[in-house]
C-alpha cells in the first residue's frame, strides 16, 4: 500500500477510535458540533491509543497493528451492533455564511492551515527537543516493538528527560507501525492536525455566543500568531498540550454553565488527563481545573454543592486513573524531573528564590513586546481588558477563562522559582513556549469580553 494511503489510514483509525470512545460517553443535551467532535475525536484517539500501547507494555504484549487495533475494532463493532451513535448538534443557521469580510478571514485561516501542513510535512523531524527527547523515544519503541526494559535503565542516559510522559512518542510509534517503516517526515502530520483542532475548537466555542464574523476574526487572530503556527510544524509538544488543556477547559466551562451536562464533565476530565499524559506541565492544568471546579462549586448555590462535590471527586478520579500507571512506573524506576529541585518547595528555601522574579518578568516583557513571534496579541489582550475592565471578570465564563489564565501564569512563575536551573537561561528558553499553552484560552477570554452576551455565557443554575 502506498505510504500516503497508510498515512490517511492511520489518521482515520485514530479519529475513528476517538469517535467510538465519544459514543460511549453519557448522552448530552447540548452535543458538540461536527467539527468540534472531529477535533476532540482526534485528540482523544491519539491519547487513548497511546495509553493502550502503554498498557500493552505493562502486560508484556509486543506492539503490532493487530494488538493495537483489536480493542478498537471490537469497540467499533459493539457500537455498530448496539447502534450507539454520537448525536451531533445541528449546524447553526448560516453556518457557511458569505460576505467579503468573512471570506477574507476564511482565506487567511486557510492559508495558515495549509502552510502549517506544508511546513510540517516538507521536512523530517529535526529541531532540538523534537529529536533529542521525543523522536529518539519513538525510534527506540519502534525498533524494539515495545518499551524495552532498558528504557528506564541504561537507555535513559542517551536522551534527556526520561520522565517526560509518552503520549506522543507512542503515537509516533503507532504511525511507524502503520507505515511499516520509520518515516520521521510523514509522522509529523500529527502536529498540524492538532493545530487545526485547536482552531476548530476555538471557532465553535466562540460561535456559541458570537456571530460568524466575530468567531472568524478571533480564530484568524489565533491562527496567524507566528509562534503558535510555528509550533504546529516543529514536532514539539507544546501545541498538543495546548489542545488538550483548551479542550478540557472549554468542556469544563460547559459543565459549569449547565451542571446536567455530565458528558462535558467526563470528557473534560479525559482531556485534562491526556494533557498530563502529554507533558508534565499538564499536571498543573489538571490541578487548575480541579481548583476552579472547587471554587465554582463552593461559591455556588448550596443545593447544588453536594452534586458538585461528587463531580469534583469523579473528575479527580478520572485524572488519577488515567495517569496513575505512568506515575507508578516512573516512581518504581526512580525517575524524577531533573529541572525541579524539591528542596525549593520548602517555604524557607522558596523565599530565597524571590530574586528570580525580576529575570522572570524581564523575559516575559521580552515576549510581550515581540511582534515577530506574537504580533500584538498581548498588548491587544491588555487593551481589551482596559476597555472592558468592568466586565472582564463578570459572569461565570469570563471569570473562569480569566482565572484559568492567571493561575497558569502563576503556576509557571512558581515552577521557575522551584527550578534548580539558571533562571535567566531557563526562562529565556521556555517562556515563549509556556505562553503557547494558554494562548487559545486568552483569545477565548478576549472573545468573551468583546462579544459575549450575558445571557449566553452565564450559568443557568
Amino acid at each position, binding site marked *: 500500500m502506498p505510504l500516503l494511503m497508510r498515512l490517511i489510514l492511520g489518521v482515520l483509525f485514530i479519529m475513528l477510535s476517538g469517535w467510538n470512545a465519544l459514543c460511549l460517553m453519557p448522552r448530552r443535551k447540548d452535543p458538540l458540533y461536527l467539527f468540534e467532535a472531529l477535533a476532540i475525536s482526534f485528540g482523544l484517539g491519539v491519547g487513548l491509543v497511546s495509553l493502550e500501547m502503554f498498557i500493552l507494555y505493562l502486560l508484556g504484549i509486543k506492539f503490532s497493528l493487530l494488538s493495537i487495533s483489536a480493542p478498537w475494532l471490537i469497540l467499533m463493532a459493539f457500537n455498530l451492533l448496539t447502534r450507539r451513535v454520537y448525536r451531533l448538534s445541528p449546524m447553526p443557521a448560516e453556518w457557511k455564511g458569505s460576505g467579503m469580510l468573512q471570506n477574507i478571514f476564511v482565506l487567511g485561516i486557510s492559508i495558515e492551515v495549509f502552510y502549517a501542513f506544508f511546513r510540517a510535512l516538507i521536512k523530517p523531524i529535526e529541531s532540538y527537543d523534537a529529536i533529542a527527547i521525543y523522536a*529518539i523515544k519513538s525510534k527506540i519503541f519502534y525498533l524494539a516493538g515495545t518499551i524495552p526494559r532498558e528504557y528506564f535503565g*541504561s537507555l535513559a542516559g*542517551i536522551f534527556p528527560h526520561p520522565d517526560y510522559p509518552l503520549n506522543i512518542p507512542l503515537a509516533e510509534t503507532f504511525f511507524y507501525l502503520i507505515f511499516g517503516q520509520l518515516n520521521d517526515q510523514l509522522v509529523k502530520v500529527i502536529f498540524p492536525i492538532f493545530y487545526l483542532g485547536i482552531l476548530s475548537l476555538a471557532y465553535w466555542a466562540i460561535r456559541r455566543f458570537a456571530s460568524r464574523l466575530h468567531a472568524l476574526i478571533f480564530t484568524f487572530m489565533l491562527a496567524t500568531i507566528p509562534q503558535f503556527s510555528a509550533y504546529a510544524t516543529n514536532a514539539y509538544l507544546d501545541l498538543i498540550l495546548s489542545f488538550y488543556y483548551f479542550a478540557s477547559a472549554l468542556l469544563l466551562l460547559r459543565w459549569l454553565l449547565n451542571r446536567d451536562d455530565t458528558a462535558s464533565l467526563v470528557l473534560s476530565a479525559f482531556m485534562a488527563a491526556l494533557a498530563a499524559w502529554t507533558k508534565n506541565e499538564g499536571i498543573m492544568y489538571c490541578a487548575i481545573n480541579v481548583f476552579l471546579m472547587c471554587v465554582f462549586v463552593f461559591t455556588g448555590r448550596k443545593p447544588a454543592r453536594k452534586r458538585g462535590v461528587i463531580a469534583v471527586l469523579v473528575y479527580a478520579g478520572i485524572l488519577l486513573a488515567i495517569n496513575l500507571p505512568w506515575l507508578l512506573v516512573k516512581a518504581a524506576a526512580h525517575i524524577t524531573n531533573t529541572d525541579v529541585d524539591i528542596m525549593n518547595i520548602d517555604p524557607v528555601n522558596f523565599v530565597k528564590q524571590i530574586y528570580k522574579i525580576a529575570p522572570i518578568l524581564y523575559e516575559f516583557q521580552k515576549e510581550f513586546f515581540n511582534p515577530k513571534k506574537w504580533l500584538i496579541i498581548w498588548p491587544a489582550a491588555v487593551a481589551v481588558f482596559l476597555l472592558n475592565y468592568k466586565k472582564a471578570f463578570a459572569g461565570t465564563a469570563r471569570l473562569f477563562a480569566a482565572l484559568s489564565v492567571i493561575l497558569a501564569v502563576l503556576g509557571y512563575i512558581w515552577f521557575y522559582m522551584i527550578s534548580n536551573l539558571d533562571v535567566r537561561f531557563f526562562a529565556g528558553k521556555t517562556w515563549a513556549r509556556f505562553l503557547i499553552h494558554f494562548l487559545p484560552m486568552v483569545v477565548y477570554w478576549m472573545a468573551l469580553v468583546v462579544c459575549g452576551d450575558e445571557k449566553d455565557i452565564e450559568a443557568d443554575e
Partner: protein
Amino acid sequence: MKKSIYRVLLIIWAILWAVFTVRELVVKKNMNDYRTLFSLSLENKHSYITGKRLYEFIDFARARLPENSSYKLIGIENGSIDQRRAVYYLYPRLQKDDADFLLVFDASVDVAGRYRDFAGLDSARRILVKEKVF
C-alpha cells in the same frame, strides 16, 4: 469609540501578519529551502538538514558499526543539535564514554595503544576501534 479601537487593532494585526508572512517566505529565504527540499528523498532531506559532511559520516558509521556496539563522538560538541541528531541517527548503537568505537569528526585525538584505525571517509572523518574488541 471601542469599536474604532478594535478596528485599528485589527488593521494593525492584518498588516503585521502580512509583513511577517512575506518576511518568513522571502526575506528569510525559506522559499529556497522549500524548493530544494521538495525534490529530495527522505534520506537526502536528512542529509540536507544535518549538513552533508556530517550526515555522510554518520551514514558511513551506520554502515560499519554493528547495531549492538557503542561509540563516542569526538569533535562534535556534547549537547549540541549535531550531537543530538547523530545520537538519533546512529541508534540502536549507543553513545558511551568507554565506547567500542570513536567517531572522529574534524578533530584530532591521541588514543595510541587504546584505539586503532578502523575505517575512514577521509583524514578528517575517521572511525577508531578499541584494541582487542573486534
